[in-house]
């Protein structure tokens, strides 16, 4: 029996080592390839072996607008993280701790947003932005101009009421007994004090989980910006900008020689922040999702 256990353990390790390597292989290849010379890259047998920091390529890529893209993407991430956490906390508190008529119906309304397939709505959302009244040369009926299309607010206007955040935090509020706030209420504390001072510190695992989720979602956003602000590279988020750089810097050509390290550098610049955030905060990520999202 014990021998069998041991065999299973060894087999598990072998299985996990191989499969984990396969899982990270494409990304690892890119990350290492970003730090090789072209010649060394072409020699790669299983993985390229780094031999340089590629300062020239990094500098050229940054000069071509990566700083700008980082700044813009970062602002957008900060905006969406703030909105998600704030609205999620307020909404979660209201649905969990307050009693009022119409509660279940409104909650269901928000939940219906969770089954709404986001990518499918892109076409009508595009039209809504193009027809937005009184913006971008539009009249009050939303005709005559280009609306929000091609303007930076188009990347900030959706998602202010995030159903997932409200749902997740409602579940978390449900698990904390209401007695916590009674004493504060006696002292005349307002709703915001109760939410942020009393419950806030107890809710940090789901809050951190939400921060990670909304950071990743915003950082990786590609399709919506590619539809709505094409032609305005200064507002491209990083995922789109790095692809655009491939065109402007002209390293990728289907016939000529490909400058592999340059391509790897660009992908690397777009992917290291999500990886870093995930590695730093992953424990809270799992904890937060598991603790609050699933028991409901």
């Amino acid at each position, binding site marked *: 029996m014990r021998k069998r256990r041991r065999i299973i353990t060894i087999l598990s390790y072998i299985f996990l080592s191989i499969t984990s390597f396969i899982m990270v292989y494409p990304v690892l290849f890119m990350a290492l390839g970003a730090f090789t010379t072209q010649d060394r890259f072409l020699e790669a047998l299983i993985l390229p072996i780094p031999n340089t920091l590629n300062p020239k390529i990094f500098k050229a890529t940054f000069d071509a607008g990566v700083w700008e893209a980082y700044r813009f993407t970062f602002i957008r991430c900060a905006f969406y993280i703030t909105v998600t956490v704030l609205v999620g906390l307020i909404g979660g508190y209201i649905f969990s701790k307050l009693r009022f008529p119409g509660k279940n119906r409104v909650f269901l309304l928000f939940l219906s947003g969770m089954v709404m397939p986001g990518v499918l709505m892109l076409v009508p959302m595009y039209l809504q932005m193009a027809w937005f009244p009184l913006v971008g040369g539009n009249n009050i009926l939303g005709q005559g101009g280009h609306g929000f299309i091609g303007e930076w607010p188009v990347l900030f206007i959706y998602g202010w009421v995030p159903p997932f955040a409200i749902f997740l935090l409602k579940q978390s509020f449900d698990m904390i007994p209401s007695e916590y706030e009674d004493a504060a209420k006696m002292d005349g504390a307002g709703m915001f004090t109760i939410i942020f001072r009393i419950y806030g510190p107890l809710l940090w695992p789901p809050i951190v989980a939400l921060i990670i989720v909304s950071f990743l979602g915003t950082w990786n956003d590609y399709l919506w910006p590619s539809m709505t602000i094409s032609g305005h590279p200064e507002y491209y988020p990083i995922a789109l900008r790095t692809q655009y750089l491939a065109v402007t810097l002209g390293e990728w050509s*289907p016939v000529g020689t490909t400058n592999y390290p340059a391509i790897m550098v660009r992908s690397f610049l777009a992917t290291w922040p999500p990886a870093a955030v995930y590695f730093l905060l992953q424990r809270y990520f799992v904890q937060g999702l598991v603790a609050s999202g699933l028991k409901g």
Partner: protein
Amino acid sequence: MTLKTASVALRPREEELTRLQRLARWYRRHREAVIAWSFLTPMVIYFIIMTFVPLGFLIGISFTEWNIITPPRWVGSQNFKVIFSSYKNWFYLKVIGRTVLYAVAILVLNIVGGFFVALVLNQDLRGKGFFRTLWYLPSVFSGAVIALLLRIYLAPSTQGVLNMILFKFGIQPVDWTHDPFWMPIITVLFSVWQGIGFTVIFFLAGLQAIDLNLYDAARIDGANDLQLLRYITIPQMVPMLLFISVTGMIGSMQMWEVPKLITAGGPNDLTYTLLYSIHNDAFGALEMGMGTAQSLVLFVMLLVFIGWQLNQYRKQYGV
């Protein structure tokens, strides 16, 4: 008796209250509702404008023929008739069937593979946190960035990184993106690669929530490992399975990265999925009516699937 009369005397009669006092009393009684609705009203209005108005557009435009430039023309159910007709050799029905096939393949691999990995990771192994981290890693990256990277990996002749490596092992270059055998497989594997970490994490969470006493009790009754899996682990995982299959289906039916960024639907339309078709018709051919009609079909399919799943599980397991 005296007490009661005293209290009645102390309380001001209704008509003696000023308007302000009445308001204050009403507020005290309905305080929670007032607070809740003063926050919820803007949220609900915003939510309806930003979610249900586009949904209305989607439904309305799907009954028109419209190229954005000239005014839309009402054509009734014509777009839907085209979708469900033999037009262009059953083109749209093939697209729908293909999308469902991809989604099912992705979902099955995701669930079977994810469950197996979760079982392996649920053992008492040293360093399992490290492996779990690696398994989830692909899910944190932008599908678009990885797809663009994949395009370089899969490029034809030894220009492509994959061919370059295989060539060193003596394997002749393959034109991956134009290969009708490999490209569908790569498409499925790409989606599984991106999504399986999510499945593993949620299955792991579910496994860890199972009461260990159940296993002990069954072992005392002489159950073997396989029976434990069949009669305890799997039934206990049903709610999680429901959650994963619903979210996974919604995700994999909307797969777009590979056709849009790598293959343009090819080879032989083998990666021409519904979402790519929607995008192509709406913004490529400027047939907004066709694009939105297909979106609506996909939306209804997803709703039917979710409803069917919920119903099925409720019937069988009383979830």
